[in-house]
């Protein structure tokens, strides 16, 4: 049985916004309506994940059901939400 309410928080801090976060805010354009229906999407101020030296953890960051994901592109967001849906 899939999950029916996925909490999504897109970081809108400066570092995230300029490194791809702005594209994620256009989620209504690239998310499937069936997926959109089961998601509660909101913006959040800086998640403080960008202040790290780890080159793997790069902006933009998105928190899905309490777990923070790095390097999120629109394509990656769709994958992450599909995974969360079937979790």
């Amino acid at each position, binding site marked *: 049985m899939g999950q029916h309410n996925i909490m999504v928080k897109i970081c*809108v*801090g*400066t*570092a995230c*916004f*300029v*490194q791809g*976060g*702005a594209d994620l*805010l256009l989620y209504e354009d690239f998310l499937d309506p069936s997926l959109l229906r089961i998601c509660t*999407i*909101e*913006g*959040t*101020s*800086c998640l403080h994940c*960008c*202040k790290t030296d780890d080159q793997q953890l790069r*902006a933009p960051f998105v928190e899905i059901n309490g777990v923070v994901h790095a390097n999120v592109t629109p394509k990656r967001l769709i994958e992450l939400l599909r995974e969360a849906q079937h979790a």
Partner: protein
Amino acid sequence: MNEIFIDVDYNQTYKAGQKIGGDVFLQSRDPVSQQIVCTLSDGLGNGVKANVLANLTANMAHKLSFSPMHLTKSAKIIMNTLPVCNERKISYSTFTIADIRPNLDKTVTVQLIEYDNPRVLHFSHSAVIDIVAQEIELHREGAFKHEIIRQSTFSMAQGDRLIMFTDGVTQSGMGRSLPLGWRQAGVVEFITNILQKDPHISSRELAELITRRASTLDGLAAKDDITCAVIYVRKPRKTLIVTGPPFTKERDAQLGERMRNFDGKKIVSGGTTAQIVARLFQTKVKVDLSCWSPQVPPASKMAGIDLVTEGMLTLGKVATALENKTSIYAMPDDAVRRFVMLLLDSDHVSFIVGTKINEAHQDPSIPVEIGIRRTIVGRVRQALEQNYLKETVLEYI
């Protein structure tokens, strides 16, 4: 900061089909004496030629009004300097100069010089007051007409307005809805009605309502350049901008105290700063996804704060908009537009700038416009002071 503020703004519509105006309005404030000089000039004809004439006139009048030279001599110099129109074989341009000096007793002394523009209106709240003027004939050699300058000196108190406009306003609607145009009496009646309904209307809004009405009377295709300037003496409207986290955590409480005691509108610019303020005020930041554009991150909402925005990108775009005097109507409905609107409706702007460095912004892959906070704030201040005659103060924390 002073207990009175002189709010000066203007609005202009060019003659239909023209890309440049033949009316020129200039304003400047002496930072030491707080003297303000406003000059309105209407050049002969329209388009580039009129613009050159009006610009020459306005700039000369503006400069000369800061000199100790007698005004009749200044007026003669202006008229002798203007180039002669190739078609009409005359050199001509109108001008109105208002020299405004604040006094210590919360009044303002105005010296007004008028030459051939429609009469300047002096309103005390919603009542029009007669300006008693002395008429001086210039007797200039080579003049093609009687050149009479009206000179007056009077006092303005809090709640008073001075409204100046070109004949594009008084003659609007001529031959269409109104046989003789809107005329001075029609303009007075229109302004009286507005001031009765909205006694605290800003100079920007009032000037815009007047020019918009004149343009409507012309069937939205202005027959002449339409320009209106408003000078409003009022209690200052204050805004506080808090941007950047304080240098040390210990200073957070000090920041909260300053914000609590501030009597005016409050803007918080910066994600981390907003989180600090939310903690100090025991409230929450809620991102407003209805207000953003691809260039600027969304604004947020916080109880007790009028506007919460992202920091560096938003401030950078606010600085650019103020430097370029971008119309708020040309901006998307995003945080920058809301920020600029709040600033334009303020007279005194106080900045509290946190000096803590944001490590995330030091990443080389971050765009270059994420500059140094102090530099961007400096640009905003300079644009507010020079382009909009606002008073600003800055404090680092």
